[in-house]
């Protein structure tokens, strides 16, 4: 740490101390207000969903939750069937994603050379930023026909297993939705699991190796068991994200509100039903019933996220922490702290090795089984990344012929008029996202300062609710913005869309900012205080300055996450031409090849923007960590 630099800054602190004290009076009220705003947002989301759904629950009672009647005209949306659909779809997605994600994480953390692992991990974390609408577009136009023609007929023809895949092969199905969800959640799952695995102390691995374990045995007997809570958290948080995904699922699940009898049958989930039904529900009971679907989804996802966050906290402990920020969509900048190993635990790991060692036979045999396991993990790594590379390739290939400078700077025109572009949508996205940033950034920073300055239960509760809020499905935040802005103001607006995005950004900003602030060494702050600087002055000149790259990185990650959002804008913006994501959603579903090509080109621009934002965010974070070393 360059002492001279901070010394000179401290001298300035001393000289300006008194002035700072006067100005600093606003500091405490400011962060209190920030925290109050954040608390109010959390409460407002819950209250708006509760009041919005009150009429439905009053009318149908609690039996609404397990009802099997689908009759939108009377406000009955077969909640029970949708819950089953949601559970089956996300369950299948996790069955697919968990082994692949875990294998990939093991490969990244334990098997491939460190330099390759670092590059691949950064890549995986970038993939986590791919907007769900782009995955949805690819699934609809590429995967769906492929499933109808090849995948589903093949699965149906399998002996024994085929029973789970009976019936006509339509393409859109529970299976396709599950595959899409698995692809979408894999980057998050891999990144979080890898962080958990990396947290297992080197000493434990060395101890096991010293006892004669092979590399694979170290993985199986030491690393995986020790990292279990962190892995559990990763799977649970990915599950929460899958449950809440609405748009991509609505595009590929076939929208049949019936109990699934086969995995290749069309189905419906709570999220897909909300996408399809919210706007057209009959005012009054109908709308209230759709919001009640949202309430059920909210309860489910919050429950899953609470479990996930508790597992995450169980995985962390008082020991040496290695916080690694991960930009997880559907989650905040999550940090899995390394579980500290007590000596006793390490010893027990050793015993766990020692016993099977003799039981598992000769070294060659152990080496062979190890090689099989290791190859499987590397295959899993490829399987986790390959679909998203294919997606990128398709997007570029299909977008290329439509991309031109004119496409970027000309406004959206109707089908059949030539010379159109997407400038209206680019400007709309920039406007909405920019306004959301302006709304969320101050509250996010001030809340983070509150969490940093205040010990006790209230900040802990706020921190926890930020983590949980970051897992709330974006479609529910869209309903929230509709209820509090569009309905009272009587028209959709950029402001309504921006509010929804701001609420989505807020928890990410809060947690990322707090993380960045905490990374500033305490002794620097003490030095400032010792020179007589007021707390506010220390915060401004030492804490905020020191954490600036981290703060910017966190805000950019939040920005990247919401730039690709579709669901919250669906009910809040006046026209699909006003956001790139909405334009992809409407154009991608048009049957006209030229319009589909425009959707691909829009997807390319959106993807480039989101990946650029994430890359810049990571660059900022990188300079921070490098400086700290």
């Amino acid at each position, binding site marked *: 740490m360059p002492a001279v630099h901070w010394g000179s800054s401290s001298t300035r602190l001393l000289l300006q101390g008194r002035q700072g004290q006067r100005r600093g009076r606003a500091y405490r009220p400011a962060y209190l207000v920030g925290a109050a705003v954040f608390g109010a947002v959390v409460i407002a989301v819950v209250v708006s969903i509760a009041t919005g759904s009150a009429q439905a629950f009053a009318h149908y009672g609690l039996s609404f939750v397990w009802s099997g009647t689908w009759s939108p*005209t009377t406000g009955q949306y077969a909640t029970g069937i949708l819950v089953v659909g949601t559970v089956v779809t996300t369950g299948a997605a996790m069955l697919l994603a968990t082994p692949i994600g875990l294998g990939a994480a093991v490969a990244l953390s334990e098997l491939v050379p460190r330099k390759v692992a670092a590059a691949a991990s950064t890549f995986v974390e970038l993939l986590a930023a791919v907007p769900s609408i782009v995955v949805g577009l690819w699934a609809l136009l590429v995967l769906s*026909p492929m499933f109808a023609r090849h995948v589903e007929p093949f699965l149906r023809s399998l002996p024994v297993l085929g029973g789970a895949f009976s019936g006509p092969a339509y393409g859109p199905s529970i299976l396709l939705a599950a595959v899409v969800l698995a692809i979408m959640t894999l980057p998050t799952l891999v990144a979080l699991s890898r962080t958990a695995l990396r947290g297992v102390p080197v000493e434990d691995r060395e101890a096991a190796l010293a006892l004669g374990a092979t590399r694979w045995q170290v993985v199986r007997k030491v690393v995986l068991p020790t990292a279990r809570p962190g892995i559990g958290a990763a799977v649970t948080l990915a599950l929460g994200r899958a449950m809440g995904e609405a748009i991509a699922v609505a595009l590929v699940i076939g929208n049949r509100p019936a109990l699934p009898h086969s995995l290749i049958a069309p189905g419906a989930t709570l999220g897909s039903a909300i996408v399809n039904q919210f*706007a057209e529900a009959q*005012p009054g009971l109908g709308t209230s019933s759709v919001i009640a679907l949202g309430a059920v989804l909210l309860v489910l996802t919050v429950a899953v996220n609470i479990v996930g966050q508790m597992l995450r906290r169980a995985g962390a402990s008082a020991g040496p922490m290695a916080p690694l920020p991960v930009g997880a969509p559907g989650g905040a900048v999550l940090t899995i702290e390394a579980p500290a190993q007590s000596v006793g635990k390490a010893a027990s790991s050793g015993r766990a090795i020692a016993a099977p060692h003799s039981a598992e036979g000769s070294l060659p045999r152990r080496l062979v089984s190890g090689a099989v396991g290791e190859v499987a993990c590397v295959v899993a790594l490829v399987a986790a990344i390959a679909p998203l590379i294919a997606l990128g390739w398709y997007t570029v290939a299909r977008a290329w012929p439509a991309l031109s400078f004119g496409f970027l700077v000309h406004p959206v025109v109707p089908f059949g*008029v030539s010379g159109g572009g997407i400038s209206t949508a680019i400007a709309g996205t*920039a406007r909405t996202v920019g306004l959301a940033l302006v709304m969320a950034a101050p509250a996010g920073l001030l809340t983070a300062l509150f969490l940093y300055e205040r010990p006790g239960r209230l900040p802990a509760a706020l921190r926890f609710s930020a983590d949980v809020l970051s897992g709330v499905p974006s479609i529910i935040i869209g309903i929230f913005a509709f209820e509090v802005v569009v309905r009272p103001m009587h028209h959709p607006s950029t402001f309504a869309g921006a509010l929804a995005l701001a609420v989505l950004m807020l928890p990410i900003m809060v947690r990322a900012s707090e993380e960045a602030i905490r990374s500033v060494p305490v002794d620097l702050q003490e030095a400032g205080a010792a020179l007589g600087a007021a707390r506010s002055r220390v915060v401004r000149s030492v804490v905020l300055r020191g954490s600036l790259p981290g703060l910017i990185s966190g805000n950019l990650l939040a920005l990247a996450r919401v730039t690709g959002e579709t669901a919250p804008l669906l009910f809040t913006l*006046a026209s699909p031409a006003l956001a790139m994501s909405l334009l992809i959603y409407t154009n991608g579903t*048009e049957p006209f090849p030229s319009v589909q090509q425009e959707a691909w080109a829009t997807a390319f621009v959106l993807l480039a923007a989101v990946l650029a934002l994430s890359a810049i965010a990571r660059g900022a974070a990188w300079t921070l960590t490098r400086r700290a070393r």
Partner: protein
Amino acid sequence: MKRRAAVAALALVVPLALGTSIAVGQDRPAARVADASGKDITLDGAGANSIEPFFSAVFYNYHKQYPNVTINYSPAGSSVGVSDIQQDTVAFGDSEIPMAAKDLAKAKGTVLQIPVDLGGVAISYNVPGAPKGLRLDGSTLAAIYEGVITNWDSPALAQATGVSNLPNLRIVPVHRADSSGPSWDLDEYLIQNSSSWVSKTGTTDPSKTWPLTSVGVGEQLNSGVATYIAQTPGAVGYVEYGYSLEAGFTDASIRNKVGDYVAPSSTSIDAAGLQAAGKLSASNFNIIDEPGAGTYPLANFSWTLLYQKQSNANTGLALQRLFTYVITTGQLQAAKLGYAPLPLSVVALSKATLAKVENSAGQLLAT
């Protein structure tokens, strides 16, 4: 320190600069011609998906002529148009099926319902090797949507269509997952023409939500149905004729009231509209299976919905001018987009209804 500041500055400036340059690059018409009000105004509308190709073409031309008027239309479906107007969250709604008395009762005032276009619903299929204009009647269509006829080479289908060499391919019937005008139209046609359909669905009351969702695939909006048909050999579904025309689909010829098998076209849809001309109203809107040779049986008017009392007189005037343009000049674009121009008597009805728009004090707005 400097490096850090530079990174920070870059990180902040790049996205902002991108956003600004893009916002500035937006098309600004060089010469601004105002409509009579002269003020910048934005009209937000939502509703029928079927009218979207027509609306977007007409609105685009209107905006070119009067750049001070910006129209946003969200083609989320007829029910969205009704629901949004009831909740008063849009300046205008649009529905393929006009609002019934019970819908109107939920609105926040008197709603004017104005016929603005005349369209048809095509039964489109993706069957390699099958001829155009496959002949289908009500009971055959019902059997397909009931899941009774399941293969294109089934004898029942060969007998009904008179085409015996259809391929051995599974029929995938596609219906709308959202509630929509085309669903209502086909349901009404099947109710009128198939007793088995009535007994299967258990009602003679046509529904905007597809009544038999257990058979086939549900897709969102015309676009979703059309995309599925385009992607899936064996698929058959109902879409607004405008979509089918643009997508180059093969459409079935549907048996009409007098026993003619008629394919959708601007002319045959026009014939259905003419049957209704003179007696049309928001409560007497049903033009499914009208008589007459050459009349296409699946046709309907699309209805724009707006409040009679406009709290903002400027908005009221702008709406009045816009829809006067839609029902007159705008109709010139109907035929090439797969719609039929409104019959003159219907234009007169629309004009008379539009003239009823009032300001908040209840005075008529001058057109």
